[in-house]
């Protein structure tokens, strides 16, 4: 049996609760596609090698580095970016009320320059959903894939724990 190797591939996926079909060159990363083709620039291109975490998005609810993911690997999957976070719990409309994790970051001053924040937010949402936001040490371990060069780690840790507590209390 032989397989057909293609230089253009059609991919259908859900992006922030909306179905999209796109044709890409196979080497297109999810990060480049989001930023350059779709115009969603929340996910940042920090290191482009999986080291900094600022391109973190959710794929089928799991956090992943957009720079280490090809669009062709997302066929049939559901992708959520930071742009889809606000109002995510609503009717699928973006731009609604801030997600509790976003509000917690604002309340705890969990950033300075803000460049890493979209990745931190996506990672935090997943960290809480995974059940790893239990205490300081666990948050630091399970958020270690997101680098903050302003070093707002104490505030980020506090925000993640506060959002986790709020979620548990609901």
């Amino acid at each position, binding site marked *: 049996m032989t397989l057909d*190797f293609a*230089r253009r591939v059609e991919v259908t996926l859900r992006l922030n609760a909306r179905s999209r079909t796109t044709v890409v060159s196979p080497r297109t990363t999810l990060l480049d596609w989001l930023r350059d083709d779709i115009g969603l620039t929340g996910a940042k291109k920090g290191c482009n090698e999986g080291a900094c975490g600022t391109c973190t998005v959710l794929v089928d609810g799991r956090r992943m580095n957009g720079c280490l993911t*090809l669009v062709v690997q997302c066929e049939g999957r559901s992708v959520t970016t930071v742009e889809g976070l606000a109002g995510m719990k609503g009717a699928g409309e973006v731009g609604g009320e801030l997600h509790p994790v976003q509000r917690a970051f604002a309340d705890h001053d969990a950033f300075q320059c803000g460049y890493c924040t979209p990745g931190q937010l996506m990672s935090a949402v997943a960290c809480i959903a995974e059940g790893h936001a239990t205490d300081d040490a666990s948050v630091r371990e399970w958020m270690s894939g997101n680098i903050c060069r302003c070093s707002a780690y104490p505030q980020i840790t506090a925000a993640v724990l506060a959002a986790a507590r709020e979620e548990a209390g609901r």
Partner: protein
Amino acid sequence: MRDFAYARAGTAEAAVGTLAAPRTAVIAGGTELLNWFRLGIAAADRVVDIGGLDELRGIARDGDELRIGALATLNEVGEHPLVTRLAGALASACLQAASAQVRNRATIGGNVLQRTRCPYFRAEEPLPWPCNKRDPGSGCASLAGRHERQAIFGWTQDCVAVQPSDPAVALAALDARADVLGPAGPRTIPMREFHLTQREAAAAGEPMRETRLGADELITGYRLPVSTAGQAYVKVRERASYEYAIVSAAADVRLAEGAGGPRAAGAGEQRIAAARVALGSVAQRPWRLTAAEAELPGTPLTREALLPVIERAMADAVPLPQNGFKVTMARNAAVRALLAAGGAA
């Protein structure tokens, strides 16, 4: 990034069938391959995606064996209750590898095929310095330059790199076997023999070969004998998280039961009945301390008793001018792993 043509495999056989053609690469998670393409390490023109193959997924107990599909992600392996209970060192090694988001993509099949983190090797092409792995015959910039993180066993003048995988160390310590599929059908490779030191590769006439896996073969999964012995994976690194090991150690320790004699009743000097221990990041393959394993039965589970046993087993270490500290550090990691696996630390 390097341009390539792409196909999704419907079966593992179909994927293997494409590997006969030169310059064809397999993608599973892609966390290594994409960076190889960016740096110019991989020269593939075709990529076959095995990510959709359900036959390569799953973690299950099969009698006395634990079976782990090649596509299980590091987070899936690390947090699976069967792995935690029956192969704890592997679970721990997986969760100490990379970051939470990389572990959601990286697969246990691909992980052992990652290549060295030697900074001279992992540079963007064209390389400004020699590297025999990148340009055979050019030389080894690390040997002449910085090499404090490199090998203390099995290196040659051609290359001093180490294999950085954490899970590979646990798989070797736990006597796992890789299930491999090739054009001639399936076969298994013991994980303690899967990787090759530079010296082993040179002796086989292929100095730059790194594993026993054929270019036309695919890892489909692993089988591990289940173990109810205590296990531990100790990783020593410059950051507490999200960093490669300077050295690491995986251990599995069964204690002597009801150790007789008056001392057992008191503050309790427990003795080892059987132990397995492997070091990581000291060679281009996980380094089982077989001499120590032969000596450990009957040895008290104390730092004082274990240190000389490990020291004797590491007497053949040949550190480079800058990495003598790794001999001590690896010795201590092995002792810590044994103590932790035995429940004494």
